[in-house]
């Protein structure tokens, strides 16, 4: 008896399952996994605008030929079973209760797209409008603070060293093009006499001296005005002139930039150093060798110490007991800034005169930014392309030094990156949604026979 009951239950359950399966309406495969018409629409719009043709047609709604061509291109790129409607909307100002978007023109290959179409929108800009990025001027503040000055040493009466393949004048031109948009004023110092005025605290064109950035395009040599070709500045092979430069950098909170090699290794003035032996030891005349005392004296001047004849000696790579060179790599943070500012030097560089981090403790310096990832070798940490700020005991900054420290020939873009990575001025984009400069294109797609 029980067996019969069990069999009847099985028959009833099986019958119920079959009946349910028969009448159940399962979704169609294309409902479960539908074609992503939204993405197809967006990629079609991107393709149509790859040559800027969609943008042009969107602003020529009265041009029947342009719209006929647009329709042909859409039809040629979409599969036969897809129907479409492309509509261009004008972007209104939106003020005074106006409609934000107004339909301008439309093309379609179907009376309607059914009830399950999908759409994508694409904002195009007029070819008559130029969207210029506007760089922030370094030092400008919202409260009205003025921007700072960029000085480029382009002294016609001085020579350069370790700028092989270039001359100071060509480097000055490149730096001007790269950096002048970011500064309130850019002053190109044309000769050592003008540089002398600057060192004596006289602006050349009414610019602000305070907080300025100075780039020395002469490489390892530094121009010396004739007025400083005398004692005490000429003492110790002109080391005391370098000490004066350090003092001035401290006094005016300048940022001194050495673009290549050992900073302050030579002094140069082709009008003053005219003797038969006034050459740097490598046949470049109008130049005298200061040696490693130049940098050490500069740092003492920057740190507000009294002048003493240098006894420290060689401190960078490539001399003393230090390693000869290091391959340095642009840090990830600086690589991001390369994209931001559109400056792309090779990320691998060779440093042969990078300074050690020990100068931070010796001269009250703080490495506040660095183009390259620091390298540790020979028991020291080597910093190339770093910006060292001189911080006094109250925490205030009085002067900065950027010793790029790479080998010759110099890539001037590294200098530009070093300055920009320290100050990080913003680049303001133009308003893309401004009235009458943009139009919205909407491409709606549906499937033939779609529900």
């Amino acid at each position, binding site marked *: 008896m029980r067996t019969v009951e069990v069999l009847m239950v099985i028959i009833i359950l099986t019958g119920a399952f079959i009946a349910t399966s028969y009448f159940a309406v399962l979704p169609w495969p294309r409902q479960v996994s539908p074609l992503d018409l939204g993405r197809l629409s967006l990629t079609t719009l991107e393709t149509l605008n790859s*040559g800027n043709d969609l943008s042009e047609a969107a602003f020529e709604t009265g041009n029947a030929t342009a719209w006929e061509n647009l329709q*042909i291109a859409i039809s040629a*790129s979409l*599969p036969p079973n897809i129907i479409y409607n492309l509509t261009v909307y004008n972007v209104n100002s939106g003020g005074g209760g106006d409609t934000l978007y107004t339909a301008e023109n439309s093309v379609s290959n179907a009376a309607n797209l059914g009830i399950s179409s999908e759409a994508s929108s694409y904002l195009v800009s007029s070819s008559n409008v130029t969207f210029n990025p506007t760089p922030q001027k370094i030092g400008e503040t919202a409260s009205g603070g003025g921007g700072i000055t960029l000085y480029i040493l382009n002294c016609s009466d001085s020579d350069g060293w370790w700028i092989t393949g270039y001359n100071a004048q060509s480097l000055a031109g490149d730096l001007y093009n790269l950096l002048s948009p970011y500064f309130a004023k850019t002053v190109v110092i044309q000769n050592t006499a003008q540089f002398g005025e600057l060192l004596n605290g006289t602006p050349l064109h009414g610019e602000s001296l305070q907080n300025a950035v100075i780039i020395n395009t002469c490489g390892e040599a530094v121009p010396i005005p004739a007025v400083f070709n005398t004692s005490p500045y000429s003492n110790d092979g002109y080391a005391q002139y370098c000490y004066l430069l350090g003092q001035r950098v401290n006094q005016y909170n300048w940022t001194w930039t050495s673009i290549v090699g050992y900073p302050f290794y030579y002094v140069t003035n082709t009008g003053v150093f005219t003797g038969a032996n006034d050459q740097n030891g490598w046949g470049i005349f109008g130049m005298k060798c200061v040696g490693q005392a130049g940098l050490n004296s500069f740092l003492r001047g920057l740190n507000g110490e009294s002048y003493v004849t240098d006894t420290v000696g060689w401190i960078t790579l490539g001399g003393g007991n230090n390693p000869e060179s290091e391959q340095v790599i642009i840090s990830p943070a600086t690589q991001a800034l390369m994209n931001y500012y559109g400056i792309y030097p090779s990320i691998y560089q060779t440093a042969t005169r990078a300074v050690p981090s020990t100068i931070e403790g010796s001269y009250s310096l703080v490495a506040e930014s660095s183009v390259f990832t620091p390298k540790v070798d020979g028991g020291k940490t080597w910093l190339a392309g770093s910006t060292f700020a001189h911080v006094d005991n109250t925490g205030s900054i009085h002067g900065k030094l950027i010793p790029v420290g790479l080998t010759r020939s110099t890539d001037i873009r590294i200098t530009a990156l070093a300055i920009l990575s320290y100050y990080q001025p913003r680049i303001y984009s133009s308003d893309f949604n401004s009235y009458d400069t943009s139009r919205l294109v909407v491409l709606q797609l549906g499937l033939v026979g779609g529900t």
Partner: protein
Amino acid sequence: MLLNPGSPNNWGQSDVTPASFGVQDPEFTQYELSAFSLMRLGASGDLLEYDKTPNNMYTRVTPGAGAALVTPNADALNYSKALTLLGIKGTYGFQLSLTPDVTVSVSETHSCSPLTLSLTATGASFPFANAEVNYCLFLVTLGSTPAQYPSYELLNGTTFTDTQGKASVTFSTVTDPSEVYAFIAYARLDGVVGVGYHTRTSESDQYLVPVVQDIGSQTIVLAHSYDLNNSNAPTASLKYNATFVISTQDYTLSELSLGSGSGTYGYIMSGIGNPVENVTLPTCTTGILILTYQESASLGGVIIMPWGISALGFPVNFGGNPSQQEWVATDLRQVMIGDVAYQAKLSLWSTKAVQVTG
């Protein structure tokens, strides 16, 4: 895989096996695919054996006469490896199909005085009407003495397709019906670009085949047809002249100097022991390698090879066979490869047992 270049992102231009799979062009965002990564995908085509190189097995993709892309199987990324890199091996299968949006077919309607070529441009569902067609005729002059190599002349021009997507171009300077040439045409309208080609060669069993020996070093070996498929070749020679052309911004073809290698012209000798000739292509750009060759003063030919899959609008089919699957999810995208518009179809299915009703 369309929005990811893979790792390393330049794997398409090297010999390395990628650590992750993707075919996006690393220099772009969105749906711009790498013409070189796609060239490394294991293609379906005729197997070809060439014993004069360390890689001796190749696959020949030949969508039409006169053009060929022969890639080394050793450098190819096969479907099984791609599944592994995507982490779906044993669970899902896929097929990636890339088809040019616009097909440009070229045929010869008059052989000389003038040479007349007819073009038909067709989109996915519509004639490609009103399209601007930029074309280039690569007209070959065979060397008349043993010391002369085949030379060439580039003739660029522009025309438009009619409402049926058809156009016709004539070259009155071609007066010999056996004159060898290659013709390449780009049809473009509103960002949609298609490419087509046609070649004319002399009848001969000797011809030249460009073989991509090594993608990483961009080395192309110029193989004699007698040396292919272990044919125990007799000694025979062909004179050749190699040219690399790129499409400029306005779609005219411009020559680009070839890098190191045996040179841009010389001899290839069939038979074991005879040296191989090669050319090195640039890494920076897609383009077309045009090889002219001649057996005698009257017998010669031309063969063109795309450097980057899109340069001649070659289609791509990579992956499994969706027709044998029970339930296949399919999605479509418009993509750009180089300057050429393609439709990308990605089919995906489960390899586990499924039951579908409805």
